[in-house]
């Protein structure tokens, strides 16, 4: 069966024999398999993920841990378009299923409830007015867009994650960028 328990030591030993592209003597930056994706790609220090208390372990993937049965795992992963929602200044992420919302207004209402804030009115030209928050999202191409700029269906299929921007950055994004 595949998937042996791979401790860190084993990984380090394998590294020496790994085939990689690059000039001899150069080191590729390590990308662990158990990723912290938002840390790598988030702008600035906004999306802070607070590990619950302990020193963050850089553990390799452990087979069969936590002890959740595979059918439950499937349920968790199955259906739905789940995207992470972060808000500038908030310590924790949320996750929502885009498919349960009928459109932008429902989505934004849900986000407002989730983070206890108001987002303001959307206008094509000026972005979100009336509050200091603006909902943005990262699309499939890695570009950060303002929520509402594209038709809903297109948004649902192309949105990778949501981020509620705050302050001047938000206003900046709204102005015809």
């Amino acid at each position, binding site marked *: *069966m595949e*998937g042996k*328990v791979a401790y860190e030591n084993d990984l380090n030993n394998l590294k020496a024999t790994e085939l990689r592209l690059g000039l001899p003597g150069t080191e590729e930056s390590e990308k662990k398999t*158990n*990723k*912290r994706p*938002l840390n790598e790609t988030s702008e600035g220090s906004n999306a802070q*993920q*607070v*590990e*619950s*208390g*302990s020193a*963050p*372990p850089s*553990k390799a993937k*452990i*087979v*069969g*841990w*936590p*002890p*959740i*049965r*595979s*059918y*439950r*795992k*499937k*349920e*968790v992963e199955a*259906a*739905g378009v789940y995207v*992470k929602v972060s808000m500038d200044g908030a310590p*924790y*992420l*949320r*996750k929502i*299923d885009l498919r*349960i919302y*009928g459109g932008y207004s429902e989505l934004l209402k849900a986000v407002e409830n989730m983070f206890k804030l108001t987002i303001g009115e959307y206008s094509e030209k000026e972005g979100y007015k009336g509050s200091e928050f603006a909902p943005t999202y990262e699309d499939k191409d890695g570009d950060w867009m303002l929520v509402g700029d594209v038709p809903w269906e297109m948004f649902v299929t192309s949105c990778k994650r949501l981020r509620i921007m705050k302050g001047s950055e938000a206003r900046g994004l709204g102005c015809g960028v």
Partner: protein
Amino acid sequence: MECRIRKKESPEPNILNQASPFPDEVLERVLGMVKSRKDRSSVSLVCKEWYNAERWSRRSVFIGNCYSVSPEILTRRFPNIRSVTLKGKPRFSDFNLVPANWGADIRSWLVVFADKYPLLEELRLKRMTVSDESLEFLALSFPYFKALSLLSCDGFSTDGLAAIATSCKNLTELDIQENGIDDKSGNWLSCFPESFTSLEVLNFANLPNDVNSDALEKLVSRCKSLKTLKVNRSVTLEQLQRLLVRAPQLCELGSGSFSEDDLTAQQYSEIESAFNNCKNLHTLSGLWDPAEQYLPLLYPACTNLTFFNLSYAPLDGDDLAKLLVHCPNLRRLWVVDTVEDKGLEAVGSHCPLLEELRVFPADPFEDEAIGHGVTESGFVALSRGCPRLHYVLYFCRQMTNAAVATVVQNCPDFTHFRLCIMNPGQPDYLTHEPMDEAFGAVVKTCSKLQRLAVSGLLTDLTFEYIGKYAKNLETLSVAFAGSSDWGMECVLRGCPKLRKLEIRDCPFGNAALLSGLERYESMRSLWMSDCKLTMNGCRLLAKEMPRLNVEVIKEEGCYEGPAQRVYVYRSVAGPRRDAPSFVLAHCGPHNARGSGKGSTTWSIVCTMQPYLVCYMRGYFQNL
């Protein structure tokens, strides 16, 4: 069975020579009323007559490890069995620690049963491999077959279910849970003939694909005795309504998907009234993709609810609170940790009668916490409001010793305490100390504790506590814990009722393994994976304890070095003959995989009647 009662004569002068005053039929009839397994085992030890009466009158048998006995031995001792429960693979197979094709195939049992138990009515299997051919064989071999329950099994598809539906004319129960099933969709539900009306329990909640909803509706319509109906995710709210109006007598309901784009007001009220008419519901589950706005539909059904399984329904704390207000009689609750501590506070507030809580993680395999999940404060809040709590399964990312101590002070009656701090080896997040004192508090306070699962950073001290205080402990699960052999030795020495010990990724080695020599024959099984055992240690154990099967799961041909996955269990059937090539079975003084001289020893054991009685007693009692 006719009962000819012989008039009791005046007692013979020589009472010692007197045969039993009861004719066999009377004894059998009386003993037939003894239902408990333990009582039956005790009964069988009284004398030879009682042993025989017991074995003839027994109708149902439970085998906790299918390799501990053979179908031949079973059928020889108990000729009249109608109901068999069999468990196969070690529990850690649920978490992919046991390779495919390991064994526990039901086929060989069915072949013997077809011959010896033609009147078989019930078969309940857990972690067994069941092929479609086996299901077809079952359906065709037992004309009185009534109840099939498959839990965590694998190897079959909906074709097998079709065979059951087609041929089992007297089926009352079809319970297919959490299996590795190959769902070919198709029409297995339509295979129940039109004349078929006997179904009382139907559970296909974990089938991944669509079912024929028309066939389902017709089936539910004509089975007037249906008490339990658990459908899968593909069944919509609208379809559910049509089912409910046809089966208002349901006691247990598992819904399908609980969201629907745009229910009309009419549809909403129809569903509402359907739920309202189900006056007997005590168990509710399913509820995939729950849409907040539809949760109120459940309120009328909640009043008499004793078991609410929301483990597929990731609600937040507020929605859970709103639901629980309507569930004052709840005894068992399963939730996803999206409810967070707030949700657990609501549980504490609204469910004073709660006895069991399970909290499953929404994102178990993510490094970072998406949302809070639940923490120590939810655990404490819950314990304050639910003093009758005796079963907990709690997945979390942070915990403290103090919180656990408080929890068990509030709830001293724990029988099952399963705490999973998801980051292996994580200390108390406030004090940064090991979690030893937490589990120390559990075992000191909860004298009735039967099952314990530990986690977090643990030293040998935890196991010292367990060995010293957990005198009723039967099942212990350990992962990424302990400092040395001493820990495991304490447990083996100190827990007299231990039956199942499963350990992974702990620094326990051969010395610890061998310290339990005297224990393993009174246990069902021992599992140790990724510990510090070696092939030599396993060989030694097998040599010293010939009545144990010592199996090592390894790469082929690798007879030396570390023993990565070890499974030890007692057996009266000797080493198993179906071990695949990656299972090295040590047995007796030989290293052979099972055939040859080993079997001669076993046949001697089996024909010695008094020896068999003593041995079987231990076996059937403590499975």
